[in-house]
């Protein structure tokens, strides 16, 4: 460990000792979560690698890891969002200074919530095929179209929107990226019932909704590039969950395969034990991979391993659910109050698809790993160079 990292470690430890009560997991001075987050942002812990004039401390990645670890140790939220905050990172990288000042603090402090307005009925894996249009009229754009599978749209203050601003260029070139206010007359949100019985995601209908031109992130026509950055942050977050307890979801990780095997009286069954071992191994291996990736990155070496996390996570979640179902046996036919354990496992079985479909399917992840990490030839796309107006997404 170098002396810089030591110093920053000492500093963050001291700061946390002054401001955070590790026992009760609350801010010492009391106050709301938002007020705590204000303090974290002010102190520069929220995005330590960013420049000092933009809420950061200009620190290297290794120091960021140190800070995040110290926060994690005492259970304090808010640090290290320069890796995880989708909106803040996209705006920081591509937004105008005005937009940065307006949007970023709201997101770093957790006051504002976002949703991702990417997918459409005709554009899922092929996100460059979106047909929602944004037309510039004076100092604002008018947006019309339909989005789907939008997680959290009900509670969102802003949507990260990808929309088409030019129909006469190839599909990747005519897109722009916006931050649109969700609570306005031109936006209608309809919840969709999910496979799990929840309804976290929605259809979003945009009909003459408006977004100020200054809320465009990046230049007109540069939307694809901006979205790639946002997607990369999202995938990183989705792949990094293994090994650590997820916060906020009682249905994740609370009970282990070993507990379930004990309950089911199968803890001594050698076949079951082999299955349990393999499922637990997937989880541990991903955690070890992520640890290694972070160490590489802290040393300034780019880490291709990081891009494997999301695909590995799908395997973990599906395998956990499969093995749990086997352990439970006939009881897994039951549900609800009839059998709470079964209900939990059935939920996991269905919910595992959230990771293997949401944020890009496993198949698309494999394409990305094959092409970007291993350097294999790209998928051929029939409409890659056609003006979008002439592509099958439009002509059918």
């Amino acid at each position, binding site marked *: 460990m170098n002396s810089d990292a030591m110093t920053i470690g000492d500093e963050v430890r001291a700061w946390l000792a002054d401001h955070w009560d590790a026992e009760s997991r609350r801010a010492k001075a009391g106050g709301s979560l938002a007020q705590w987050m204000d303090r974290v942002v002010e102190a520069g812990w929220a995005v330590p690698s960013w420049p000092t004039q933009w809420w950061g401390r200009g620190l290297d990645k290794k120091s960021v890891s140190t800070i995040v670890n110290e926060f994690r140790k005492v259970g304090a939220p808010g640090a290290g969002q320069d890796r995880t905050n989708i909106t803040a990172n996209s705006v920081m990288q591509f937004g105008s200074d005005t937009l940065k000042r307006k949007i970023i603090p709201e997101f770093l402090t957790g006051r504002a919530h976002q949703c991702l307005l990417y997918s459409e009925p005709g554009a899922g894996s092929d996100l460059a095929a979106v047909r929602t249009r944004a037309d510039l009229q004076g100092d604002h754009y008018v947006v019309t179209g339909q989005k789907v599978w939008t997680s959290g749209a009900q509670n969102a203050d802003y949507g990260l929107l990808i929309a088409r601003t030019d129909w006469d260029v190839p599909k990747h070139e005519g897109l722009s990226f916006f931050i649109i206010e969700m609570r306005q007359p031109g936006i209608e949100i309809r919840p969709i019932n999910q496979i799990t019985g929840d309804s976290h995601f929605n259809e979003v209908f945009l009909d003459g909704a408006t977004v100020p031109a200054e809320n465009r992130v990046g230049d007109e026509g540069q939307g694809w590039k901006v979205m790639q950055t946002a997607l990369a942050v999202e995938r990183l977050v989705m792949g990094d969950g293994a090994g650590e307890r997820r916060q906020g979801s009682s249905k994740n990780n609370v009970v*282990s395969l*070993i*507990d379930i095997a004990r309950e089911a009286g199968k*803890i001594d069954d*050698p076949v079951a*034990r*082999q299955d*349990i*071992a*393999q499922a*637990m*191994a997937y989880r*541990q*291996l*991903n955690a*070890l*991979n992520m*640890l*290694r990736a972070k160490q590489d990155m802290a040393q300034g070496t780019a880490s291709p*391993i990081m891009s*494997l996390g999301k*695909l*590995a996570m799908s*395997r973990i979640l599906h395998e956990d659910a499969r093995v749990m179902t086997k352990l439970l046996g006939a009881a897994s036919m039951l549900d609800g109050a009839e059998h709470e354990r079964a209900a939990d496992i059935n939920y996991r079985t269905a919910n595992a698809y959230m990771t293997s479909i949401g944020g890009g399917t496993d*198949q698309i*992840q*494999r*394409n990305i*790993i*094959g*092409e970007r*990490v*291993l*350097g*294999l*030839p*790209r*998928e*051929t796309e029939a409409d890659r160079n056609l003006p979008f107006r002439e592509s099958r997404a439009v002509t059918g």
Partner: protein
Amino acid sequence: MTMISPEERAAMREGFGRLLAEKCAEADIRRVMATQSGNDPALWTAMADMGITALMVSDDHGGIGAGMVEIEEIMEEAGAALLAGPLLSSAFVAASLIGLSHDADAKARLLPAIASGEKIATVAFTGDSGSWDVAGVTATAQPQDNQWILNGAASFVLSANLANVLLVFAQTPGGLGCFEVDSAHVQIEPLQSWDPSLRLSKIMFDQTQAVHIAGVDHATFEQTLDVARVALAGEQAGACRRIFDITVDYLKTRVQFGRPIGGFQAIKHIAADLLIEVESATSAARAAARALDTDAPDKDVLINLAAFACADAFSQVAATAIQMHGGIAFTWEHPAHLYLRRARADAQLFGQSDTYRERFVAAMEKAA
């Protein structure tokens, strides 16, 4: 625990990698495989000169006193090149066993010569069952007039054909013990192995005189095997990465239906999945090495995890590499089958995946 800095470790690894690139290319492996000894004496000397054979031995016995972290990385390089010969059996496994003993005489007598590469040693763990546990030890030792007499046999002994010194686990009236046997005094039967780069032998003892190594018990047996397993995990991780790289290169150059085959999803997706196996094997082997060095509380979890994850990854990657190459890989001339052979042998050496999975769960249960 090692005193070697990360910079020194990286330099050592790079130097070793360069030596192997020069002296242990595919053609060399094939040449050595075809010899009777299965070893390249010139390469052995070069490795000794570089200090590779001295890594496991403490500095007060003429060694370098490296930790498992260094040994694991060296084994990654050795595995990538499919190095043949007694590096693992002598310099790492036998040296670690003697180092773990409480036998000052044996240490003074054997370690400097093992470190310098002058003497080659190997450890006989198991009998015909190949179960790599104490129950599998079938050789017996009886005290007789101030010395020990061995009977029975040990099998699957690595590089015994090259060894001057045999370290033999045997059942004694007072429990498990370890004995030093001069290889000139026993019958060593070479076993024909499917991986010709791996030399295995069966050793027969018939009223054989042996020297007792003090302070080696059941626990030492397991500790030595832990070292062996982690070193082997490194070999598997390195080998698995190399055959994967060879395969990915081929996917970029082999053209069918007018495009490189790596452009086909059926192939690309397999490659992406295999990359997870390769990276996981590396992470697991390194984590196990670190845990062993620091005697971490989750040592047993990590060693057993590495043992099956690396064996399975190497087996899967090597086998799939052949499929992805098509017909060319079915030829003797193509290197893919050399990796498959090593993968299948390594998957049995020192124990099996199913056993490790069982132990991994048991260790997790304890922790839970």
